[in-house]
């Protein structure tokens, strides 16, 4: 009487599901090729892990890494114990890069988290309720998108966290933390509409599904449906965009550093390292290339992982 195997008309077209026999060993689930993480994906994970661990650990372990006898303008790439050389102030580049990773990752993650929370919630609300709420919120996103992100960031940093000359003529140096927060906030504002639109588009699609109506028919409230039914389905799309967003925010911070409104000393970021090393490109090219390679590999890894996440959780590609 009870069906012992999935009926052919409704069986998923993809990998054969395990037959529901009690003692049968669980059939190994083989993912389609498009869904595997792959060598590239693992390389990306490894690189990001290295960056993350170094960013946390290295500045804690190496407190003082001044290279004795460092003189400005001299190439000191080959100093024993300092494989990546040192900068013109005599700081070990490994330490500088690790510190840079801290700031860059903080800015990237912080901006995207702001975008995820604010943009995600607004997008969810817009896509779920539709109608006037959607129109209002969508116009808000479009207005945010229309503001050039660089101009906005420069303006915010200049207005809120810039060194200035006080009323008594004494220069006021802004705290590095304040600058970091304003940077994260400025780039977060840029991330909000992007994540909001992705969330909204996916919510529009998922909120039409019958299981949402079924949840309503069971008496679930809107908030509950949004959080428990829609959000988990929208999450993969949000995450894949968020990974790309981290990369974009890191690059944007680098650009701002070159404009002089990136992180503030004593914080350094990869962008500010590039900016600081740029005048010495002809004599000490490694000062620029090392942070560039770090930034490049990190952005590449994040982009690649974003694609992997999207493919892995895409229902269409999972052939269910």
């Amino acid at each position: 009487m009870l069906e012992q195997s999935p009926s052919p008309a409704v069986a998923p077209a993809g990998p054969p599901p395990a037959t529901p026999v009690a003692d049968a060993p669980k059939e190994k689930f083989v993912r389609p090729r498009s869904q595997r993480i792959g060598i590239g994906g693992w390389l990306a994970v490894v690189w990001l892990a290295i960056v993350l661990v170094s960013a946390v650990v290295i500045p804690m372990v190496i407190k003082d890494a001044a290279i004795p006898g460092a003189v400005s303008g001299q190439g000191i790439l080959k100093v024993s114990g300092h494989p990546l050389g040192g900068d013109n102030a005599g700081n070990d580049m490994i330490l500088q890069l690790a510190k840079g990773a801290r700031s860059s990752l903080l800015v990237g993650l912080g901006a995207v988290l702001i975008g995820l929370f604010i943009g995600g919630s607004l997008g969810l609300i817009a896509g779920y309720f539709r109608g006037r709420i959607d129109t209002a919120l969508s116009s808000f996103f479009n207005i945010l998108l229309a503001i050039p992100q660089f101009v906005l960031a420069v303006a915010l940093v200049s207005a809120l966290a810039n060194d200035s000359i006080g009323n008594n003529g004494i220069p006021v140096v802004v705290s590095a933390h304040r600058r970091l927060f304003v940077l994260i906030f400025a780039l977060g504002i840029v991330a909000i509409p992007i994540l909001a639109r992705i969330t909204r588009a996916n919510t529009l699609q998922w909120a039409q599904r019958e299981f949402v109506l079924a949840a309503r028919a069971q008496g679930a409230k809107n908030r509950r449906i949004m959080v428990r039914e829609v959000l988990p389905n929208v999450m993969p799309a949000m995450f894949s965009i968020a990974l790309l967003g981290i990369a974009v925010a890191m690059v944007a911070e680098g650009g701002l550093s070159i404009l002089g409104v990136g992180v503030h000393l004593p914080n350094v970021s990869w962008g500010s390292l590039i900016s600081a090393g740029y005048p010495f490109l002809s004599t000490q090219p490694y000062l620029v290339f090392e942070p560039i390679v770090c930034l490049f590999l990190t952005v590449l890894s994040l982009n690649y992982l974003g694609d992997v996440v999207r493919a892995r959780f895409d229902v269409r590609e999972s052939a269910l």
Partner: protein
Amino acid sequence: MRSFRRSRARRAEERFPDAPLDGPLLDVNEIRTYFKTERGLVRAVDGVSLTLERGKTLGVVGESGSGKSVLSRSIMGLLPSNVERRGSIRFEGREIGSADTETMRQYWGTQMSMVFQDPMTSLNPVMRVGNQITESLKYHLDVSSDYADETALALLTSVGIPEAERRMREYPHQLSGGMRQRVMIAIALACGPKLLFADEPTTALDVTVQAQILELLQAQQRERFMAVVLVTHDLGVVAGRADDTAVMYAGQIVEHARTRELFTHTSHPYTEALLKSIPKLAQPSHTRLEAISGRPPDLVNPPAGCKFAARCPYAQPRCLESEPPLDDTARPGHAFRCFFPVGTDAGRDALERNLTAGVTASGMRVGREGGQIATGSAVGV
């Protein structure tokens, strides 16, 4: 938090003190559901009245677009926002026809619930089956997680899912279509509703599973003394299962009677056509299926007279001019909308006239082919 949830559960009890056990469970009067579209108002449900006693089954039959699904959603109040709903709906004597969503939420799940057509899309793909059942239990009945889990397990077992304990932890895509529909039924039954809408519960399923699901629904209904509105396009599903059957066409009920009466004394030509379109085992092989030619009328500008006249082999000029009322004076308890009902002298004469003329009053060709009446494009092939 705890006390807040307790008070909510208490409030729910206060809202539904023991309702009077006499009187119908559901009493729908002249309900109209219009969709506002760019083309105009689509009259999806246009003046439907029905009553349903506790523990009974009402079959609602009609082809696609006849308004049968919209009817059940209208009664439940599960309609999109571009809809105008009028008319009176009384549930246990309480008027809910004009209730807002907030009020209706008190009814959803605990008083009335719904099983949807497609079990592939009506379960959340990223939530474990067990959680989907315990969700509403915990919310409505304010029970502990352990108790909810036990109840869910018992429910899954009672809807015939083997190894329920393992299935609880699985995701919907790991279940077959029949299994998923069983899970849907378990979810709908979780909070013990008094009224269950089954919206084409077997349409998306394999034929071999359909009968099992219908039997399961029937068994659960008997056990729980629950009323069921069984919406289907298949008269065969209704036969033997529904106490009453209403046949819908173009948003209206065209025939409504006890199911046995409806099958033995079919009066409306549309019901007759639906019955004829079911293939029968007794027929010799290669018998042509009697499809109903034409399509349902435009619900934005419905025709003036009888809605079925354009496709009806009995249609007379009178049918095009005025609309027959839903009337049960001819056979008490058996209401139908037709001037020339099937099986009466008036009906036989009307058909004979049309056959002689070769065309009905609405201009549809009609003729005899073998022992059958052929209509529309089928004539003279």
